[in-house]
């Protein structure tokens, strides 16, 4: 474990000494809980309709697919007209586009970013390499199937998928959300131990709390 994560005594600027245990003090340890649907189906449908109309994407370009985000933000393809926009922080976003292969090092950051996002949240896997490794199937540093590590709602195949494919993907995702089938966050909470076991199998130096948000 890295030095800054060890339990230690810290002296503040005002000269007062205090003890810090970073993994306990800086993170909430409570595991994620399932979020039940609203008491009436019509209310849940209304919620889902509203959710589907505002997909806010986390601006984290994890792989080469990030290059096609820029055209989507600009007038040529203009995803904003579908209620899709990009946000700089996980706290404001509900859609995580995994834009391509994930190296083990990035997977760690992706898990943390995903866990910091607010419920309900969706994951879209972009590119063939998220589905089965694509052309990096024999690489020692990229994960081969994303849905072992994060609950994926939708895959967009291609290397690399065109912006039109992404727009179609957004429309499909909206459809899935309106049908109430985009239950990724609940799935993650329900199978939390399974996801964690998979994640820890590839991240050999796990040095963060199990759930950080």
């Amino acid at each position, binding site marked *: 474990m890295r030095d800054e994560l060890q339990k230690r005594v810290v002296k503040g600027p005002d000269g007062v000494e205090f003890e810090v245990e970073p993994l306990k003090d800086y993170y909430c340890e409570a595991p994620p809980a399932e979020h039940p649907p609203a008491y009436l189906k019509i209310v849940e449908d209304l919620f889902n309709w509203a959710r589907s109309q505002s997909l806010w994407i986390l601006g984290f370009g994890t792989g080469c697919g990030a290059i096609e985000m*820029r055209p989507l933000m600009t007038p040529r393809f203009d995803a904003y007209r579908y209620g899709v926009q990009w946000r700089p922080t996980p706290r404001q976003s509900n859609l995580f586009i995994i834009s391509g292969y994930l*190296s083990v090092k990035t997977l760690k*950051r992706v898990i943390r970013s995903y866990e910091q996002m607010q419920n309900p949240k969706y994951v879209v896997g972009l590119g063939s390499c998220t589905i089965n490794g694509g052309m990096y199937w024999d690489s020692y540093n990229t994960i081969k199937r994303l849905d072992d590590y994060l609950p994926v709602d939708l895959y967009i195949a291609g290397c690399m998928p065109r912006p039109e494919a992404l727009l179609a993907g957004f429309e499909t995702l909206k459809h899935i959300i309106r049908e109430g089938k985009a239950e990724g966050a609940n799935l993650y909470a329900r199978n939390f131990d399974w996801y964690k076991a998979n994640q820890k199998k590839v991240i050999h130096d796990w040095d963060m709390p199990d759930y950080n948000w």
Partner: protein
Amino acid sequence: MALYTPDRSQYPAALPDGSLEFDLASGKYLKLWQGPQHPGITGNMSLELTVCGDEIVHARTHVGYLHRGFEKLMERRTFIQCFPIVCRICVPEPDFNEYCYAQAVEELAGIEAPERARWIRTLILEMGRINSYMMYLGGQAGSLGQAVIGQWTTYGRDLMLDRFEELTGARIYHMFILPGGVRDGLPDGFETRMEETLREIERIMADVEDVMFHNAVFKTRTVGQGIIRPEWIEDYGVTGPNARAAGVVKDVRKDQPYLVYPELDFEPVSGTDSDVFTRADVRRRDVHVSIDLVRQILARMPKDGPLMAKVPNVLHWKIPKGETYVRGECSRGEYGYYLVTDGSGYPRRVNVRGPSYTHAMALLEKMIVGVNIADVAGLMVSLHTYPPEIER
């Protein structure tokens, strides 16, 4: 009159070698991570900044978030199987990978690409350069808060991507320059549509010049900021526009002309001030050079002739033992492939020398000390680094 005078009473003392002495436990310093999940970072990398107040006292670049191990993967792929994966090494300007790889293989195998293929290769490389610069200009303006420039330049880049699509069939990864030649010739009417695209890009560039380069805010935040000292050029292996902006006119296209550059008429762009503004300006003027080059190529290239040299059956293609290094001038500097073969059907070793390797690691860590946090993004973008070519 200075707009802002920082309080330096708490700042660390400088050690004789120019680095700063600071003690993290004193509580005066804060560690701040910029990236990998951060809008102000180029691609997927991160900077570990140690700040005092809002000034950086120490920085460390962390890369490896995009590492796929290409150099290892290529060792277990045949020479022709390597060709579709090399372009993935650098996303915004993939063609240099294809060219350098193809050229290195051709050199070791004793093949010469036909004349027409060499013209088309040059055309593709120059189109890619325009794309890369357009992307850079949007990023540079965006990092300093001018979001609208990015909207315009991405539109211009999209038009160029249409031409790429017409020529190669793909927007991003073209997989067009293969060992032995190129896949196809120009489609009918390509020259006319390219001329329209170039005119549109020139119009966009005129707007960009007016709105970005004559903007008081942009000038205030970039002039005199992030200077690369001339003595750093050789120490840190700085190449391309970063070196040219410092007055060192390094341009592989002129120094060691490759493809059909000896027949083309152009002058490398250079500057003198070596700050963020000059680097942006050098690249803006370089777009016009590339536009001119594309016009020259389209006017002078042979209209017919073979596109592929005779290549042995790729299934049994063995290349004799040897090694070579091939370089080209990409939009960020010197891009090179070091290829070692051992007489088998697989490369023994491929090493990719991306310009960002030196720019984003050693040079950036050195330059960033003393910079305000708000200017880090602008400074980093001005070096024009693409992380995938650092870690491959």
